[in-house]
């Protein structure tokens, strides 16, 4: 019997939906074994259709995107009810991703930037989205961005922004066989295309942002360019590195590391060359945006309730 599959998009960019097509002809093989019963991005289904399905009738439901609105949360709960296995698909659903950085700001600040101050936004009447006005309305914008596991129990996670082909192939195969554990345990450095150029001992003298320095093709960290490889889970094949761009950590931490940002921060401290305290201070001050650098994909995990408020 064909496995029943669902795919939903919460607060995301749509890249996850597209990534499923990124497995190319593998998808055609897959279609022999699966039946898609719900996939709003690609097929014409309504929420009603999902509501009418018997509970636990979907074999595997993939949820991509984060939980930013009431609607996202509602469908997450509905899918949870209708599916046997619920999978957080991609970085947003798993750990909040780039849009999780919005947790550094409150709703008012976000709306101001998005609807009023943004240079490319034309909104002379200063119209802001309204929640449930009259009969028609928009779902409520939640105070903070949440990940899927914050609202429902999640069985498996497919990492990546979006999940890359090798990660997806392995994950889909495992999930269709009923397995929920898959993926690599090691860090990206292990499969890095620039692995051979990593010196025995890295001694960083100063940091460069990656556009500030001519890339000599060696290990980025050895060049003083922050690369999240040591604290990031392997599996993607290092596609960004192949395109001469340092890793920013979208795969999340290897399974045995809890806090990716802290792990990277720790690694960076060990990679600085010998220097006096003053120089040390200077070089560390050159890292301007700690959360954006080390928690680019996990800010929602670091600050689930938004930016903290320490009095005084």
């Amino acid at each position, binding site marked *: 019997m064909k496995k029943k599959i669902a795919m939903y998009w919460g607060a995301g960019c749509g890249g996850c939906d597209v990534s499923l097509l990124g497995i190319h002809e593998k998808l055609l093989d897959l279609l022999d074994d699966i039946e898609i019963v719900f996939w709003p991005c690609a097929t014409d289904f309504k929420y009603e259709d999902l509501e009418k399905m018997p509970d636990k009738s979907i074999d595997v439901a993939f949820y991509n995107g984060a939980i930013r609105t009431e609607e996202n949360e509602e469908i997450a709960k509905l899918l949870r009810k209708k599916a046997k296995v619920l999978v957080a698909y991609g970085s947003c659903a798993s750990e909040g991703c780039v849009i999780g950085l919005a947790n*550094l700001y409150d709703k008012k600040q976000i709306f101001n930037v998005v609807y009023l101050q943004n240079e490319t936004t034309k909104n002379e009447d200063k119209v802001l989205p309204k929640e449930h006005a009259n009969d028609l309305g928009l779902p409520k914008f939640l105070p903070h961005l949440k990940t899927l596991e914050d609202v429902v129990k999640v069985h498996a996670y497919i990492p990546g922004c979006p999940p890359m082909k090798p990660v997806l192939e392995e994950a889909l195969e495992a999930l269709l066989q009923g397995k929920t554990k898959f993926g690599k345990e090691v860090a990206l450095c292990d499969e890095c295309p620039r692995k051979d150029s990593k010196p025995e001992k890295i001694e960083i003298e100063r940091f460069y942002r990656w556009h500030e320095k001519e890339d000599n093709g060696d290990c980025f960290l050895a060049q003083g360019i922050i690369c999240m490889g040591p604290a990031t889970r392997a599996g993607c094949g290092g596609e960004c590195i192949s395109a001469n761009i340092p890793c920013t950590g979208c795969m999340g931490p290897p399974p045995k*590391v*809890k*806090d990716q*940002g*802290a*792990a990277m*921060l*720790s690694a*960076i*401290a*060990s990679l*600085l060359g010998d220097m006096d*305290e003053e120089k*040390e*201070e200077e070089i*560390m001050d050159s*890292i301007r*945006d*700690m*959360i954006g650098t*080390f928690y680019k994909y996990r800010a929602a995990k*670091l*600050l689930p309730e938004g*930016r*903290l*408020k*320490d*009095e*005084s």
Partner: protein
Amino acid sequence: MSFEPKIVAFLCNWCAYAGADMAGTSRLKYPANVVPIKVMCSGRVDPEFIIDAFEKGADGVFIGGCHPGDCHYVNGNYRTRRRVKMMKKLLEEMGINPKRLRLEWVSATEGQKFARVIEEFVNEIKELGPSPWRK
């Protein structure tokens, strides 16, 4: 009731912990708000430990290590110094007062210094009030 902060103190085996011991054997008094955790070297204090301590309800985290040049493992304390600096920057971005994290060098004979910095730290945290980071 006045606020009694919870403070986690990571103390390295060779200097700071011995310094705390010294404070004890010299019968020096310091506030009882501190929960000491012995680590082999201050360099063992992974930033994850600091985050964990705050998440689990610490109002302040103290790290005690050997003086520069004295680390039993040569350069563990230099790494700690860098990590603490970065952690303070991170705390600030998160909205936490970086004063809640404090690094001090305490040698095995500096019982007095240990008692003094702990007292200072506890008072400072008392002034700051409870940490908003508890889960």
